[in-house]
């Protein structure tokens, strides 16, 4: 290849197609190495450029060629080891890349935190034998070293907290995706689950332990004990300035504990919920599949199978089996008074009179549903009304029920709505010698139709039928 790119152009191309390096950095972090295998680089470039246009493809492949990278100084070293070529990228480039992608911050692992702690302990040990004199270059060097280490640690931890907070947002986004795409739900959940576990176990928990002032470590003092010891040493030796500064730093570190704890709690909750959610989801799907199988059975060719056969299903779960509404035992209002018998006999007389006129009874036309055909309805109501007018009536406290009792099962095709409609005329032109009193009490009339599973209910106003003479006497 004769074509060459300048360092600037190569870097520009790298940032135009950042995914390649992002993936390589991820791989580097995962294997905890400081180099990239040449084979990985080539594979990544080939994989990435597959979808690019021809011109772009060539340009990227050329720019990310090992020779080009090395000549432009972006790769600073090529190591030959174990039969492979390892490329060491420039730190500045890698760090810049990390800055572009929050997920590429190197999380603080237990080992790295330990490293920082050990260094601090080392500084403390050296302080113990220090001269604490401004003139002593050993001391001033040590002091600068201490300052740098502490601020580095704070910076690192703070960056980590931000990173942790962003990842919980990312996870929330992912679970949001999951709820929007139920087909991929399980897969999403699985990834989510793995990511959270890693984050929690490898990064959050160690950081939390590291920043907890009450932590006991088997190999020596914890972070705050170390810092405190140094503060005391500095105070005893009159270096209040540095002692105060260190004290403030330890306060800052202590303050970082809270946000990390919040993240930890959130993630822990997430973790619990995720597992729980997975079980719930699976359980619902499992039983729903059984229900769907029942439904499929109703969709076979047999036209008679219209309803779900739920008996087995209901029994397998056992929930509320045997639950049903019961008819309240019927009261039979038998009385013994003379008025009761009078009423009974007068009712019997009236019914007997009805039966004697049996051949005159109009036949109400059958209609499928009332209200569908108004003309038929009007005819029915008129026929019924004519019949009602010819009836002998007795005073009653509930005219509707009384008439219903005399019509139901007696007049062919009779339905309660007809009565309720016909009654309107009866109210306006009451039978001779009577008056109809409309009350504000409501009663319901229930029809019992054994063939149909739905019985109908009608609500009506209670109407009394009273003899007119009695009224005039009052």
């Amino acid at each position, binding site marked *: 290849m004769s074509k060459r790119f300048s360092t600037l152009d190569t870097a520009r191309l790298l940032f135009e197609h950042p995914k390649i390096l992002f993936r390589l950095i991820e791989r580097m972090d995962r294997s905890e190495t400081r180099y990239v295998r040449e084979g990985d680089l080539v594979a990544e470039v080939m994989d990435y450029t597959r979808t690019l246009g021809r011109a772009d493809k060539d340009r990227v492949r050329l720019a990310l060629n090992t020779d080009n990278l090395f000549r432009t100084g972006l790769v600073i070293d090529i190591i030959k080891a174990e039969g492979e070529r390892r490329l060491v990228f420039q730190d500045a480039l890698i760090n810049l890349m990390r800055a572009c992608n929050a997920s590429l911050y190197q999380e603080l692992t237990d080992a790295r935190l330990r490293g920082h702690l050990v260094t601090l302990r080392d500084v403390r040990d050296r302080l113990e034998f220090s001269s604490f004199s401004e003139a002593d270059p050993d001391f001033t060097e040590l002091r600068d070293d201490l300052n740098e280490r502490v601020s580095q640690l704070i910076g690192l931890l703070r960056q980590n907290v931000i990173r942790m907070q962003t990842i919980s947002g990312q996870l929330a986004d992912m679970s949001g995706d999951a709820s929007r795409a*139920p087909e991929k739900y399980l897969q999403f959940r699985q990834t989510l689950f793995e990511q959270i576990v890693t984050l929690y176990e490898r990064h959050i928990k160690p950081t939390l332990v590291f920043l907890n002032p009450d932590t006991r470590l088997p190999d020596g003092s914890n972070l705050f004990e170390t810092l405190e010891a140094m503060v005391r040493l500095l105070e005893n030796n009159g270096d209040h300035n540095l002692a105060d500064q260190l004290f403030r730093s330890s306060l800052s570190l202590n303050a970082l504990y809270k946000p990390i704890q919040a993240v930890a709690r959130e993630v822990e909750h997430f973790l619990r919920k995720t597992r729980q959610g997975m079980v719930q989801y699976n359980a619902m799907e499992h039983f729903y599949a059984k229900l769907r199988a029942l*439904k499929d059975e109703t969709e076979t060719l047999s036209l008679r199978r219209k309803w779900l056969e739920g008996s087995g299903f209901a029994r397998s779960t056992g929930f509320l089996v045997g*639950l049903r509404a019961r008819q309240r035992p019927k009261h039979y209002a038998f009385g013994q008074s003379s008025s009761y018998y009078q009423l009974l006999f007068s009712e019997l007389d009236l019914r007997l009179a009805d039966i004697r006129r049996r051949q005159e009874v109009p036949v109400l036309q059958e209609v499928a549903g009332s209200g569908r055909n108004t003309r038929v309805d009007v005819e029915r109501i008129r026929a019924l009304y004519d019949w009602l007018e010819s009836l002998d009536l007795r005073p009653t406290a509930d005219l509707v029920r009384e008439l219903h009792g005399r019509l139901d099962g007696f007049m062919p095709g009779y339905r309660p709505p007809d009565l309720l409609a016909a009654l309107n005329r009866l109210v306006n032109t009451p039978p001779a010698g009577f008056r109809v009193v409309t009350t504000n009490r409501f009663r319901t009339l229930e029809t019992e139709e054994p063939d149909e599973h739905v019985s109908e209910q009608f609500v009506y106003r209670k109407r009394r039928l009273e003899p007119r003479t009695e009224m005039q006497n009052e």
Partner: protein
Amino acid sequence: MNEPTALHESNEPVQESSATQFDEILPAHSAAIYKEFQSGRVIVRDIWDSNRSELVANPLYNVLYNHLGHFRTLYEHLGSELVFSENGSFFFLKESSDDESEEHDENAFRVQVVLLLIGRYFARSGRDLDFLGRPEAGLNEQDLITMAADEEYQDILRAARFEKGLAEALDYLDKRNLLFQAGAERYFLSSAGMYFLQELVREYEQA
């Protein structure tokens, strides 16, 4: 025609022990409980008070709970079985006939179908089932619209004799105290309704 007076006389030599049990309970309470059971309802510990918009303790539940033995015997004598679920905090009356007919399981099945559809829909939407049982969460208007638009759910409901679809099904649960309406288009499950879903999850976990 029975002579009421004769009945009273035959009841006179009542055993003292059971008489005292009856004495401890107000007839009005017992009658109210009987009425609930008769209309096919489940008696749950907490019921929704729509005026105060909060869950309130159900006095009938406490009466049952405090006199469990008495009511067990009472309903046994009436030919039913009083079933108590401690975890779900509810009572219901079971027809104790060894009736193997379809009708025997029909109500249970219809309740289970609706609850399962709700639970399945909710789990698929990525939410924790626990939220179904909270008055401030539960099913909202959007949920009802989405569920009602699902053809498969409609088919299943229709095949479970809910011809009018979801609204009828929710009403069916509401009438039985398995679900409460917390707002115009908002529902949440009672402890009894939640118990069914939790049982399904538990059963699945153990299988």
